[in-house]
């Protein structure tokens, strides 16, 4: 079908164009908009009615007028050319080169909406990924094909944490091909530079694809950016048999772009002004993580979101938490206490942890030890609150012991260097060290034979 140009723009409202006398616009169809001076901007059909199409513009609508703007309907939905050449490249939020390299030319132009994974073909994730970070490996284990978001706040080191995970993540069994797809939505150029520098320094850039929509770029692009990234990831994972780690940051900016469009369309707002379909929309992104039976590759997602005012009941973290398989919670209290990475394990959770750990995967004492650490830390933190009121002297001896264990847990187990890559063995041994002050009878979550086997070992092998 020959693309047709329309000069029937009726209204420009915020990021939207209302085009009259359009009969055959398809929902989601891409359009090319030419303004009065001949500049071209891309857009997408958001709403198609008889005689009317509402077009969302990827770019500024400043200077678009009603009389001279022409809109050309391209007859296809948003697609991206995918190829192996994308590795090591930097693209903007619409998939155009940002690094002055050539445009990607490929026979394969894939729709970025992506088709849903057949639930029957979905394979349950079960391979342990070692991130080298004790609080994740030991207590909230990440497995291949999982979606595990980082819940953070402004001013917290979530970017450093995500970069550390991207640098250190590996699967213990074999050296299979591994790549990173990084999608930035509305982050500052400084943050983007930080990630690029991190990938460069470790030589990871050549197996990384970056899609960058910075905070000075059009916010409407943010709707497409994660989809471009996930489509690229799917190509690498299922056609090139690569294990792909997708980092999406910052999901809060994505949701705000969603809200901006919703408001411009005069939709009835839901909680905090976010549209009622925020949950559905987020699921179409998060649910693209996983593994497919019979295919070698996998997609593991780490979305990062910043909770406004550290409020975890805010719709974005709330709805995200319903879809993802747990969360890593970055705590301001720990950060203030000088602990890096400031991960609060009590608020964190990995729902797929049990599939990835235990004998043959990590170590047989893993589950029990993790439970014991959780129990001790929770108890210790309660005692800390109590001692703040009555003073440490007034606590019983056992309570003081737990207080000490909680202290040791934060100082020895949670706290580690930004370049410290701990093996799972090290992590577990440190865990045993943390509970060293407890007597055998106080360790109730670990089977006696495990205590027998690993406790002595830990105290002899580690130097702490």
């Amino acid at each position, binding site marked *: 079908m020959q693309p047709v140009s329309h000069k029937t723009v009726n209204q420009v409202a*915020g990021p939207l164009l209302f085009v009259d006398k359009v009969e055959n616009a398809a929902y989601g169809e891409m359009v090319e908009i030419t303004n009065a001076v001949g500049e071209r901007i891309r857009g997408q059909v958001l709403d198609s009615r008889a005689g009317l199409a509402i077009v969302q513009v990827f770019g500024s609508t400043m200077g678009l007028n009603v009389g001279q703007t022409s809109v050309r309907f391209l007859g296809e939905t948003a697609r991206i050319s995918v190829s192996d050449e994308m590795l090591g490249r930097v693209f903007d939020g619409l998939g155009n080169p940002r690094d002055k390299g050539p445009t990607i030319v490929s026979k394969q132009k894939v729709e970025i909406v992506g088709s849903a994974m057949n639930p029957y073909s979905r394979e349950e994730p079960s391979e342990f990924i070692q991130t080298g970070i004790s609080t994740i490996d030991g207590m909230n284990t990440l497995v291949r094909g999982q979606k595990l978001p980082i819940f953070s706040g*402004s*001013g917290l*080191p979530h970017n450093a944490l995500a970069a550390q995970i991207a640098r250190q993540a590996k699967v213990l069994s074999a050296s299979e091909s591994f790549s990173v797809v990084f999608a930035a939505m*509305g982050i*500052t*150029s*400084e943050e983007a530079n930080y990630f690029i520098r991190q990938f460069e320094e470790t030589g990871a850039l050549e197996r990384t694809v970056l899609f960058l929509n*910075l*905070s*000075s770029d059009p*916010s409407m692009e943010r709707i497409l950016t994660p989809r471009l990234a996930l489509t690229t990831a799917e190509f690498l994972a299922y056609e090139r048999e690569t294990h792909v780690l997708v980092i999406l940051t*910052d999901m*809060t*900016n994505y949701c*705000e*772009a969603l*809200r*901006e469009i*919703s*408001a*411009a*369309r*005069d*939709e009835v*707002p839901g909680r*905090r*002004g976010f549209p009622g379909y925020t949950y559905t929309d987020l699921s179409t992104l998060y649910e693209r993580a996983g593994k497919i039976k019979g295919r070698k590759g996998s997609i593991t997602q780490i979305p990062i979101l*910043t909770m*406004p*005012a550290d*409020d975890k009941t805010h719709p974005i973290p709330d709805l995200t938490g319903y879809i993802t398989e747990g969360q890593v919670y970055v705590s301001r209290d720990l950060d*203030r*206490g*000088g602990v890096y990475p400031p991960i609060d394990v009590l608020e964190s959770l990995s729902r797929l942890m049990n599939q990835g750990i235990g004998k043959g995967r990590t170590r047989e004492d893993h589950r029990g030890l993790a439970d014991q650490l959780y129990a001790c830390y929770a108890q210790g933190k309660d005692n800390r609150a109590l001692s*703040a*009121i009555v*003073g440490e*002297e007034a606590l019983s001896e056992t309570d003081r012991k737990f207080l000490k264990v909680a202290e040791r847990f934060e100082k020895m187990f949670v706290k580690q260097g930004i370049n410290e890559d701990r093996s799972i063995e090290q992590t577990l041994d440190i865990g045993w060290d943390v509970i060293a002050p407890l007597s055998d009878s106080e360790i109730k979550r670990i089977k006696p034979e495990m205590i027998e086997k690993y406790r002595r070992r830990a105290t002899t092998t580690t130097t702490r």
Partner: protein
Amino acid sequence: MRNGYLIAASVVFVLAGTSRWAEALREISGRLEEMPGEEGYPAYLGRRLAEFYERSGRAVVLGPDERTGSVSVVGAVSPPGGDFSEPVSQNTLRVTRVFWALDASLAARRHFPSINWLNSYSLYTDDLRNWYVANIAKDWPAFRSEALEILQKEAELQDIVQLVGYDALPESEKGTMDVAKMIREDYLQQSAYDPVDTYSSIRKQYLMIKTILDFGHMEAEALKTGATATQVAAFPVKSKISKIKWTPEEQVEAFIKEVEGDMAQEFAGLKQEIKVQQ
């Protein structure tokens, strides 16, 4: 603002009243009958703030010689009722990397500049570590984290003190409280009306915090050997330390030498006293 990049100057751009700007945005949005986002602000509030702050930066200007220009933006946000959880504050925090939280309760106590030391942060601390080490002193980063730790500890102890009183604290914690007080009153607090105290060079700041932390170390040592915090609190050198900030830059090195001498002497005297008692 762009001139900073055109003529390669270093420009600080101070925008006082982001909140009023956002209110104007809300007013216009309301008249346009746009669907509101949070608290009546338009849904594009966050985008507009981000677009503004993203214009700050450092760039090599076009031209044959490699000159760099920079624009640093300091935006003042004044949320209603000092509530930082409202949309303008939160959207600003998401795109900026340094946060100075002005605290009404500090201002009420006439602690100026009333920047809350626990809520404020800078994400440049690690980036600047090398600069501090090269330009001020090797131990500056360590001093910074130690001082912050003491203040953090003080905030925790404050809760207990309010319930049981200062006297019920163990001696070592009384010591921590005393040092924290010195950091707050002799180092953080400055008077903008005093010709000397209004501007402290970074070198002077370093010497001040070093003296206070040294005092803290000596006190901790003394408390371990059986001294009481009350004894240390009576030291005449303490009032001398609080005078450092009034001392002009060119005399400060000499004055601090004097203070350190007094400090060593008085702590030695205390040690002697305790020995005699035992």
